[in-house]
């Protein structure tokens, strides 16, 4: 699909020009009134020479929302293998060695293999995708990932009819990953997708962001990105991809089955048992915004769950 399909953005979502400008007027007035000043005081890094993603050539799946800065994306992370604070992954991932790296592909496939990372990535065309990322904790970012559709790899390894799910596994290296020395979660981290979710064109295997190779704190050297699901489904530093018949176990579900489901689709109508999922704070913004069904990707993915009780299969 090279030509942008007009179904992807409903016309109701496009702000009329006059409203757009009156919003700008309002924002200008509001900033004089103080909100803007407070925002500038709280987010000074957004103003002074922070790297921003150049806009202008958005593709089919790209959001046109403002992209978060490189600094925001690389210093505010959940990656418990390096510690549970948001700053831990950027502070304590210095010892992690993402090269050399191999990924094992096994299970119900005709061509199982152990790939060197370079060989795994080489056959595929890398593209930049600007996705929303919604964390289950109630914050979100807009991130320009670089990667290729997981579907490309799936096609290449030729799954058999027994492959109903894909299970992923993160590397286990407590010597390089200080968070793994404590059993906050059960290590190694594992995740999974149903096959139709895995082959969906939005689902990416990511090797970079902001046009550069992934940094350790973002899941180097290769990670999963599933933009309509909560961020923790995007398993990082993948060493194993298994094609399986049964629904595989997933780390957060093992930790708290009543709080984190296998699907974990972004859904403002189904609250986390302890907090609301109706709103989210976009990193860099002052006030919260409404969370969208399937993180705004409902037009593309809602059909995958047609007829399913999303309260039961949360």
């Amino acid at each position, binding site marked *: 699909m090279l030509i942008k399909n007009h179904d992807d953005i409903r016309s109701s979502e496009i702000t009329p020009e006059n409203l757009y400008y009156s919003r700008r007027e309002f924002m200008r007035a509001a900033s004089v009134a103080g909100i803007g000043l407070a925002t500038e005081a709280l987010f000074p890094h957004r103003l002074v020479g922070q790297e921003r993603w150049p806009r202008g050539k958005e593709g089919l799946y790209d959001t046109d929302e403002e992209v978060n800065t490189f600094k*925001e994306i690389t210093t505010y992370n959940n990656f418990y293998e390096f510690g549970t604070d*948001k700053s831990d992954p950027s502070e304590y991932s210095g010892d992690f060695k993402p090269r050399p790296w191999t990924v094992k592909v096994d299970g119900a496939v005709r061509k199982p293999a152990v790939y060197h990372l370079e060989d795994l990535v080489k056959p595929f065309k890398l593209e930049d995708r600007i996705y929303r990322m919604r964390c289950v904790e109630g*914050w979100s970012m807009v991130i320009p990932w670089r990667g290729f559709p997981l579907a490309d790899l799936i096609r290449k390894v030729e799954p058999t009819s027994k492959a109903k799910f894909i299970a992923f596994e993160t590397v286990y290296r407590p010597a390089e990953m200080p968070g793994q020395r404590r059993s*906050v979660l059960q290590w190694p981290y594992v995740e999974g997708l149903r096959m139709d979710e895995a082959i969906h064109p939005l689902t990416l295997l990511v090797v970079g962001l902001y046009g550069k190779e992934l940094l350790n704190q973002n899941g180097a050297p290769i990670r999963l990105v599933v933009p309509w699901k909560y961020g923790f489904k995007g398993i990082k530093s993948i060493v194993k991809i298994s094609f399986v018949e049964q629904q595989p176990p997933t780390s957060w579900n093992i930790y*708290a089955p009543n709080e984190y489901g296998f699907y974990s689709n972004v859904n403002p109508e189904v609250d986390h048992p*302890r*907090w*609301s999922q109706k709103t989210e*704070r976009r990193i860099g913004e002052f*006030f919260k915004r409404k969370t969208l069904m399937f993180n705004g990707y409902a037009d593309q993915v809602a059909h995958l769950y047609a007829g399913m009780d999303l309260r039961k299969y949360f």
Partner: protein
Amino acid sequence: MTQAQWIQRVVKPVAFLSALVPLGLLLWRGLNGELSANPISDITNETGTWTLRFLMITLAVTPLRRITGWSGIARFRRMSGLFAFFYGSLHFMTYLYLDQFFDINSILHDIPKRPFITVGFTAFVLMIPLAATSMDRIAKWMGGKRWRRLHRLVYATAIAGVIHYLWLVKADTRPPLTYAAILAVLLGYRIWVYVRPRLAQLRLPARKEAEPA
């Protein structure tokens, strides 16, 4: 200068200014771009943490006074308690304004529905009568016994505050459990002080009975 004057004129102002340092640091970090990419979350966490810390300090005053015999320390109990209320108020205001944007409907919906918000809100509300009756004149007017009884609410505030912290973390329960352990020691000491003389009394008549008549 007598010791009382020294405490009044030097130590207390220093303690007061020190208690403002966490707020000052937060502002300084904010203005210098040293908070994380989610500064509102940082403000919420810092003010909440310092509320708990000042509650623990407040609850440590009486045991320290009893154990060390240094009665001067009691002069800092009210200040510390009021700073717990101060940071608790900042924490609550952050929630009202930055989290809920003063949306009364949303807040009324949120407080009873989210257990961690319910206990946190309870902890805050229970501090209000304590802060309001903190002045000497009011304590005198109430009478020592009634005042002390009312101010035992601080135990409930501290317990609710720690539960609030425990219920909001996603997986790493180590920090809230640390506070729980400290609180257990501080409250355990009080239980021990209360129970020990009564146990001794229980033992005493038993020994008498054992004596030959």
